[in-house]
Each structure stands twice: as C-alpha cells, then as structure tokens.
C-alpha cells in the first residue's frame, strides 16, 4: 500500500478527534535539531468545516480490537484498514514540518491486539522522532486506556500533551455504548497522569534537567448528543475535571452519525447538535477564563443552555440586580461579568482608567462590544445617551443581535422561477 493511501485512511479515521491545539508550552529551537513550540500555539490552516489544523492528526493504525458503538473504527465496521510503520510516520511528520504545513504530530491509535502493544508502538515512533530526527516540535499523544502505567509514563516523557478520552458524559452511557471501556478504565489513567505531571513540576523546581512529563498538560474529549445527558450534567462534569484532574482543556464533539447501532440516534434525518456544541464551548470558556461556576450558569429549573443567546448574556439577564456596573470603579471580576467585555478589554479598561475617566466613546476604542455591553454599563454614573430599555425589552434587543438581521440578498430575475 502506498503512503498516500495510508495517509488517506488513517487521517480519515482520526478526524473525529476534536483536539488539535499546539498550545501550552514554550520551547525554543535547538541547534542541530528541528522545531520549536510556542505558548499560544499556532494554527497552520483551517479545514472546510472551519476547524483549526495545527497538528498532523493521524492514527498509527485503525485495526481495532474494541467494538464501541459510537466509533467509526469499531471492529464490526467494514472499512479499509491500514497501519503506519514508525519510520514512515516520522518521515511524513518531518517532511510536513519542514514545509511549515504543521506544528507537530497528534498521535493516536486504535487498539491493535491489546493496549500495551499499541502503546509500545507509539513509544517506538516517538523515540525515533525525538532522538534520531531530533524533533523539537509539538507532540500530542493519546494515552490508551488500559495500558500499563509504566508505558503511559514513557509516552508522557516523549509527548508534550497527553489525552485520555472520556468519550461519553456518564457511566451508564459508557457501559451501554462502549462495553470494552469502563468509567474506571478512563479515569484511572487520567488521575495517574495528573500525579505524574505534578510530580514532574515539583522536580523541575528543584533540578533544572529533571525529565519533563507532559509539560503542556492533559486534555480530554466527550461526545455530545449521542446520549440523553443534559447540559447541566455535562458542565458539572467539565468543572469537576478541571478542578480535580487539572485538565487544560475539555473538548466537546457533536455526535456525527457514523453508526447504525440501534442504541444510537438513527443516522437518517439526524442533525449533529452543532449549536449545542458551540454553546457548550462558550460556557466552557466562562468556566476557564471568566471565573464562572457551573452551578451559576445552569440549575435544576434550567438544565440546558439557551440556544438563542450566549450563556453569559443569559446569566446577566437572570441577575439584573448585579447591573449596571460602573466602568470607572468596578473591579476586574465585576467587569468580566458584563456581556460584551472580554478578558482583554477588561484589562484594557483597568489600564486606561488610570489615565482618566472613561466614556462610552473611549470604551468603543478599547474594543468593548457596546451593542451588548451598553445595557449593563454606566460611565461616571450615566447610561448611554438615548438608551431606554425596560427589562422585558432587554431580551428582545439582545436576541435581535444574535439572529440574522435580514434575508440574504439575491439576484433579481426577470422571469419568475416558479412560473
């Protein structure tokens, strides 16, 4: 089989993995080697579905011993199978990296024979890449649940980021759809990786040349929309993962109908819940950067995110007693709660108001999205001039911002297409 065919098969098999970040680690290039990594990460292109492509995302092999109902590579699925040799994958990575196509390698694999054997193959590939090719770029490796902890440790010493996919948001769903993986089998390696990372941090503080274990942290991914969990459940789980397992990122992936299992939504007429995924990511950002808690965003009476409005606006509408916020006096935390003010504009407000009082004109210059923020702010005690909105009108005004304003313009025709 030619390399091009293998690449087609194994990239196709890997594309449902959502994670493609190359961030979280600064590493300068070293003379004699090739490659560097930057804290902010770097997107090299965007695919037709609008997702960033920054790593060469492939499976080492798609021969799989498991039969998970939601997965495209399950044993019972009839599709072409292939496997890279370690040497082939290294040549491909270096070839792409030199041409600046990619930022590094995302190495995942289906379970060939058993988790230990698969992990050994991955380690072999990464050893070759790091030592013989002296590759200093980003490597994201997927830890295989069920592999020996010592093997996972070796993998983490070679990779920059590790991930274990939690796959489905609850234990019953996991038992139903992925009978070969248990909830424990997923959470146990995650906890061990957390321990290894914190131990490596402590050692690095003492000895500069201590081995670095997954210096860019660990992440995970779950499928949304295949099973009946609500958004509240998913967000609380996410928050638990951030708090307890110190994850860098949790990815959500709207379920794509790749299987005709009777346990899953029927592939026909099924629309992947893309908007729901988008709202979950917005809420995820609020948890990570805006100091929100999951229980603030959703509760018993409102278990799902509102598809019409972003979660921050929804929170603001339910907590009108918190507003208006006085721009010239409010602290950073209060500013972050205002819809239309992000982390960067909040920091700019703090800087700019040291030089003089802020006005609405000035806020616009700082990059505050006034069309949303105007309802929640005062500048030196005054609201925006001419703004008269009562509480009922507020929702309508904010909704109007989200909805597409006008019908799409089209070419006029002399002849009526219907007649």
């Amino acid at each position: 089989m030619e390399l091009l065919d293998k690449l087609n098969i194994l990239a196709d098999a890997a594309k449902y993995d959502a994670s493609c970040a190359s961030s979280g680690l600064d590493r300068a290039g070293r003379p004699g080697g090739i490659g560097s990594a930057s804290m902010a990460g770097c997107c090299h292109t965007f695919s037709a579905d609008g997702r960033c492509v920054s790593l060469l995302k492939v499976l080492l092999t798609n021969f799989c011993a498991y039969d998970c109902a939601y997965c495209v590579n399950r044993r019972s699925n009839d599709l072409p199978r292939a496997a890279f040799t370690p040497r082939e994958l290294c040549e491909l990575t270096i070839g792409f990296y030199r041409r600046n196509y990619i930022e590094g390698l995302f190495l995942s694999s289906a379970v060939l024979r058993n988790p230990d054997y698969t992990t050994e193959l991955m380690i072999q590939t990464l050893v070759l890449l790091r030592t013989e090719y002296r590759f200093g770029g980003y490597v994201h490796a997927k830890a295989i649940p069920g592999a020996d902890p010592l093997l996972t440790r070796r993998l983490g010493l070679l990779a920059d980021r590790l991930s274990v996919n939690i796959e489905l948001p609850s234990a019953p769903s996991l038992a139903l759809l992925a009978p070969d993986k248990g909830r424990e089998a997923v959470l146990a390696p995650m906890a061990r990786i957390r321990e290894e990372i914190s131990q490596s941090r402590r050692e690095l503080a003492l000895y500069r040349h201590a081995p670095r274990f997954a210096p860019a942290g660990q992440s995970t991914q779950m499928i949304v929309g295949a099973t009946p969990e609500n958004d509240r459940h998913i967000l609380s789980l996410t928050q638990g993962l951030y708090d307890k397992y110190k994850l860098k990122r949790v990815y959500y992936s709207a379920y794509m109908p790749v299987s005709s299992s009777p346990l899953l939504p029927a592939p026909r007429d099924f629309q992947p819940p893309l908007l729901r995924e988008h709202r979950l990511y917005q809420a995820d950002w609020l948890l990570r950067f805006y100091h929100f808690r999951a229980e603030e965003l959703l509760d018993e009476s409102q278990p799902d995110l509102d598809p019409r409005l972003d979660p921050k606006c929804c929170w603001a509408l339910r907590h009108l007693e918190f507003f208006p916020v006085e721009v010239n006096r409010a602290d950073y935390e209060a500013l972050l709660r205002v819809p239309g003010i992000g982390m960067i504009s909040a920091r700019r407000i703090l800087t700019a108001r040291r030089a003089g009082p802020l006005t609405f004109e000035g806020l616009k210059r700082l990059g505050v999205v006034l069309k949303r923020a105007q309802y929640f702010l005062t500048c030196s005690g005054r609201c925006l001039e001419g703004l008269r909105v009562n509480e009922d009108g507020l929702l309508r005004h904010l909704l109007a911002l989200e909805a597409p304003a006008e019908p799409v313009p089209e070419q006029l025709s002399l002849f009526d297409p219907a007649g």
Partner: protein
Amino acid sequence: MAWTQVCHQYDGTFAGFLTCVFESYVNHEEPVEFRGPEDPCCSLYPLRTIATHPERAKRVYRSLGPRLGPEGREWVIRGFLTCLPQRELYLWRFLRMGFCRGPAVIRELTDPRVDKLRKAVLFLNREAHLYTGFTRFSDLHGVLAGEIQPKNRVLPLLRPHFCGRYPQEKLVLHDSTHGEALFHQPGKWAILPVEGFTLGPAGAEELAFRQMWRAFYDTIAIEGRRNEKCRMTQMPKRYWAAMTEFQKDWDTALPQVAGQKPPISSIGD
C-alpha cells in the same frame, strides 16, 4: 509660540524618520506631512529635505527607551513597519505626546493618537502571527523557499520564529509586497531588498509531499460540519493564493515530472 508647520521629505528609512524627529525639535518645526524620496514634492507647506544623519538618528533612538518606556519604544519601532497610511505622521504625534508625558503615555488607550498607533501595531502583530502558520515552504534542491504577500512588513517579526524553528536549514522567505526577502543559513541571517524573485520549479519529492498534504487537508474536514463562513473568518481568502492546499500542481511542476506519477512509495522504507 506655536511651531511652524512644514513638510518633511526623507529617504523612507527608519533612521531617516528619526533624523526628521531630531530636526523638528532642533528647528521647532512641526511636520504635518511626510514624503518619501519618490513622492511628488508639491505641498502647501514649506518643504524641508532631510538627509539621513546616523548620529542624530541614534541619539533619538537611544532616547526612546528612557522616555517612552520599553513598551512605548516597541510601539514606535513596530509602528514604522505597519501599513498605516501616513504612519510617520501618527508616529510623530505619538512621539511628541510621549516625550511630553513619559512612559505613562501607553496607558492613555482612549487618546486618538495612541489608539491609532496601538491598533496599527496590533494589526502588524496579528498578521505576523497568522503568517507563522500560513507560510508554506517548498524544498527546492535542499533550500526551503517560500513566498508571502503581507500588508505590513512582517519579515522582521517572522525572522526569530523561522530562524529558531529551522536552525539547520537554508531558508528564503520572499515578501512580494515590499520587495524584501529573509535569507537564513545555519548561524546567519539577513533581510535584503530583492527584485524579480520567483520560486523555481519543484522536484518529484516536493510534488509528492504537496500531494499528500492536499490529500490530508481534504480528508480531515468532516463533510457533515462543513462551514465555509467559519473557515473564511479564521483564514481570510487573501492568504489562500500562496497556500499549498489551495494550489494545483500544474502551475508549479517541472516539465519532465509533470506527466509522471510521483514516486510516493520511495519515501520511508
């Protein structure tokens, strides 16, 4: 007394601009127009032709750090690389304000003079960041060659990134908008003006890698999630022309390999 308003003509270099700043302060003249060497020299204001004076420029340059603070100094240096129309004028206004008020000047984000410069520098930084990802190199006889068409002069910002990333490679990156190119070989680099630069034809291995990259790019997109608008927001179309995944091979292939199937299986073992 208000300073006399004049028009400055200089050679278009950063040192030339700093000399203009020096002369303005010495003669108490306020430049309200800047002209490059080629611009037609008719103006309503009295014209001053400023010859670049390295010593005077250096004196102004050395004062930037102490007077404007490290960040303000950075803004001035980077501001000169931006594509802001009449950037010299905005820089002059910023400098005038900064020399007056000291390093706190960069905090006055709502002042129109500061705002204009800050946004221009932000655009430059963002464009440079995008180009660290969107630049594509071709391996032409062992030299990595690439071409970009940026709006700002991003090469000085891209230089540390690419030289650090490929320390063992010979590298040429051509900026076709400004007619400059970055040259790098292990341990050495230079940014030089070039004319009539074109990339040579590609060999068989290069074509094979391009084909594989295109195949990967097409495969990685999930058909059920297709979202053209999102792609264009993240990656505006002006970048597409120079990117391998949107090019066809026929315009870059060597005549003798154009008809053949690239020997992909020869890579690896």
